[in-house]
C-alpha cells in the first residue's frame, strides 16, 4: 500500500493535470462553463426548498431544506465518484492498452474532480447556513472550521472504494449496474432525507450505524444543522473507514493491476 501511495505521489503532476483536464472538458462548450459547478448545487437547494416548504412541508425538521442539503452533499460526492469510477478505467481503454500509464491514477482523478465539485458546493451550503443562522433557525458552532478535514477524510474513504470498484469493474462488467442499484439502496440506508434520531426501531438504528457513509453524513448535519461538533465515536469511525477503505482499495487494485490491460 505504501508503495502504491508513493507511486501515486510520483505521478502527482499527471494526476493534477488530468483532474484539471477533466474539469475543463466537463464544461467546455457549455455557455455557463464553470458557473455550473456553483449553479448545480444552488439549483438543487432551490428545488428542495420549494418542494419541502410548498408541497410537502416537514415541520418536524426545520429548516428541512438545509438539513437535506447538508447531508446530501457528502452523499453526492460519494455516489457520484463511485458511480463514475466504474467506468474510470474501462472507459479509458486507450490509455491502458496503448500507453504506459499508471492505471491507479484514473480512479483518483475521478475522486479529485468530484472533490472539487464538492468544494465548489460548499459556498452555497455556507450561504444557506448563513441565511438560516441570521434568521435564528439554526445555531453556529466554531467546529465548522474543521469541515475541510471532514471532506479530506471522506475523500480518502471514497478513493479506496473507487480504486476497488474501478479495477473490479474491468473484469466484471456487471458491477456497473450492480453499483448503480446498490447506490440507490444506499441512499435510503443513509440518514440523508431523515434524521437517524427519529428512527423508532433500535435495530434499524444499529443497521444504519453499520453503513460507513452514515458518520460522514451525520457529521455534516451536526455541523451545519444542529450546530454541534460531531460525536467522538463518529470521528473515530470516519478515520477508521477512511484508512480501511484505502487499504482494501489498494489491495484489490494491486491484485487486479496486471490483468487490466488484457481484460479491458
Amino acid at each position, binding site marked *: 500500500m505504501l508503495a502504491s501511495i508513493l507511486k501515486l505521489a510520483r505521478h502527482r503532476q499527471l494526476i493534477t*493535470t488530468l483532474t484539471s*483536464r477533466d474539469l475543463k*472538458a466537463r464544461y467546455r462548450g457549455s455557455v455557463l462553463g464553470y458557473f455550473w459547478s456553483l449553479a448545480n448545487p444552488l439549483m438543487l437547494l432551490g428545488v428542495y426548498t420549494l418542494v419541502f416548504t410548498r408541497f410537502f412541508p416537514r415541520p418536524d425538521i426545520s429548516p428541512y431544506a438545509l438539513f437535506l442539503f447538508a447531508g446530501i452533499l457528502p452523499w453526492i460526492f460519494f455516489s457520484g465518484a463511485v458511480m463514475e469510477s466504474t467506468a474510470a478505467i474501462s472507459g479509458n481503454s486507450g490509455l*491502458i492498452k*496503448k500507453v*504506459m500509464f499508471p492505471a491507479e491514477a484514473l480512479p483518483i482523478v475521478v475522486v479529485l474532480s468530484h472533490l472539487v465539485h464538492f468544494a465548489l458546493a460548499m459556498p452555497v451550503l455556507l450561504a444557506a447556513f448563513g441565511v438560516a443562522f441570521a434568521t435564528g433557525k439554526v445555531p453556529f458552532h466554531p467546529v465548522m472550521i474543521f469541515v475541510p478535514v471532514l471532506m479530506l477524510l471522506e475523500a480518502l474513504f471514497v478513493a479506496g472504494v473507487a480504486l476497488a470498484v474501478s479495477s473490479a469493474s474491468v473484469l466484471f462488467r456487471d458491477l456497473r449496474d450492480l453499483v448503480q442499484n446498490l447506490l440507490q439502496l444506499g441512499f435510503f440506508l443513509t440518514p440523508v432525507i431523515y434524521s437517524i434520531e427519529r428512527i423508532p426501531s433500535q435495530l434499524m438504528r444499529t443497521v444504519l450505524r453499520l453503513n460507513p457513509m452514515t458518520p460522514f453524513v451525520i457529521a455534516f448535519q451536526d455541523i451545519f444543522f444542529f450546530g454541534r461538533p460531531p460525536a467522538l465515536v463518529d470521528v473515530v469511525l470516519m478515520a477508521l473507514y477512511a484508512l480501511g477503505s484505502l487499504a482494501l482499495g489498494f489491495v484489490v487494485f494491486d*491484485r487486479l493491476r496486471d490483468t487490466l*490491460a*488484457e481484460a479491458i
Partner: protein
Amino acid sequence: MSTPAISVRGLSKSYRLFGRRSQLQTLKSALLKRELRPDPESSVQALRGLTFDVARGEAFGVIGRNGSGKSTLLKIISGILKPTEGLVSVNGRVSALIELGAGFHPEISGRENIYINGIMLGLSRKEIDRRFDRIVEFSGIGEFLDQPVKTYSSGMYVRLGFAVAVHVDPEILLIDEVLSVGDEEFSQKCIAKIQEMKARGATLIFVTHQLALVKELCDRAVWIERGAMAAIGDPARVIDAYLQEVAGHHLVAAGDVPIAMSGSGSDAPAPREEPAEKDPLEEERWGSGEVLITDVSLRDDRGRQLVALGGRSPVTIRMQVTAREPQTDFVFGVAIYHGDGTCVYGTNTEIEGWRPAKIEGDGTVDFAMPALDLVAGGYRLDVAVHTKNGRAFDYRRGAIRFVVGSGIHDVGIYRPPHDWSFLGGIELELTQSSGRRDVPPEIEKTLRELDDSDESD
C-alpha cells in the same frame, strides 16, 4: 557491449479468453489466488519462448504476419502487458508509439493536450515548456494549436501525437506500425527524426509491415511466426526468409547452393540464427533457388577476370545464371558496398525499367561500367536475382570482395573524375609521375600476370 537495452528471456504470453460466464470466476481467482496464469482451455498463446537481446543503440525490426504476436511483444516490452512466463528487462527511458495521440482528450485544445500527453509520457511541465516550440513546429498544426483536438483531421491528430512522443527524447523508442499513417511528406519527416534519434544512440524497436523500412533502418530483425521466433539476425536475410514463407515456399538453408523446395514441413520451426555479421570475408547466400547465379566475376574491357582494379579502369560485373524452372517474374540486382558497410551504389533491372519477359535455361548478365571512380579501399559486391516483390531466388551477399588500389591517397569513397588547373599567379608542379596514374604498380603487375595466364571465357 555493456548491458543490453532490452533483454528478453523465455518470454511467453497467454491471453485469457474472456467469456461472459467466466467473468466472475476470473475476478474471483485474480482476487483470491492472485493467479494470473489462465487454464489452457480458455486461453490463446500469443507468444511462446522468445529469447533475444537488443543492444544499446541498435535498431531492431520485428516483422511477421498479422496476429503473429508482434504487437503483444511490443506491449510487453513497454510494460503495458505482463508476461505469462519469462523475463523481460528494459534498461532506459522508454517511449512507446503504439497508438499516436492515445491520450488526447477531444474537447480540449492541442496546446493543453501537448502538456497532458507529455506528462503521460513522463515529462515534467518544465521539460515540456522547453520542448514546446519544437513540438509545435514538428507537428505543423500551426493555427489549430488552440482549437479543440476534436476539430483536427486524423492526419493532424497523428502528427501531433508523433511530435510529442519523439520529443520525449527516449533512450528506447518502441514504434508499432505508426509510420504508415499520415501523408508521404510527414512519414519521411518521421523517418528522418527516427534516424536522427538512432544517430544519437537511442535504441529502436520497430514493428512494421513495411519491409523496406526495416531493411533501411534496422541493424537486426526478428521474424515472429505464430508467437515463436522464426528467424533473427540480419534484416535482409530475415525479411527474405519471411517473404519466402509468405510466398508459400519452404525455407532453404542458407550458405551453400540452395537445394530447393524439398524442406521438411515441421510445424513450429526452431528459430534460425541469422548471423548479423558473419565472417566478413565469407559469402552469404540465400534464396529459394529456382534461379541461380552460378558464377560472378569482374571483368575488364577485354573480358579478363579482375581481382584488383584501379579506380578509373572499366569494369563489367558478369553473372552466369541458370534457371531451373522457367520464370517470368525476375529482377537482377547489383550492389557495391564499401568495407565499412556503406552502400556505394545499388540498382536493379526493375528500378531501371527493364520488364522481365522470360528466363529459361542458362544465360549471362553483364553490368558494364566505363569506370568505377572509387577511392582506394576494400569493397564488396552483392548480386541477386529475385522477384519483383523482393523474394530472393538467389541472393549472394559479398559474392566478390575486391580491392581498389591507387597511388593517390585521397579519402572517401567516390572519386569524381576531375582535374586541377591553376591560373594567374599560382604555380604548382606535379611531382610524382605515377601520381596521375590510377593503377598502382602492384596492380599493374597483377593485371599483367592475369594477362599471361589468360583463360578466356
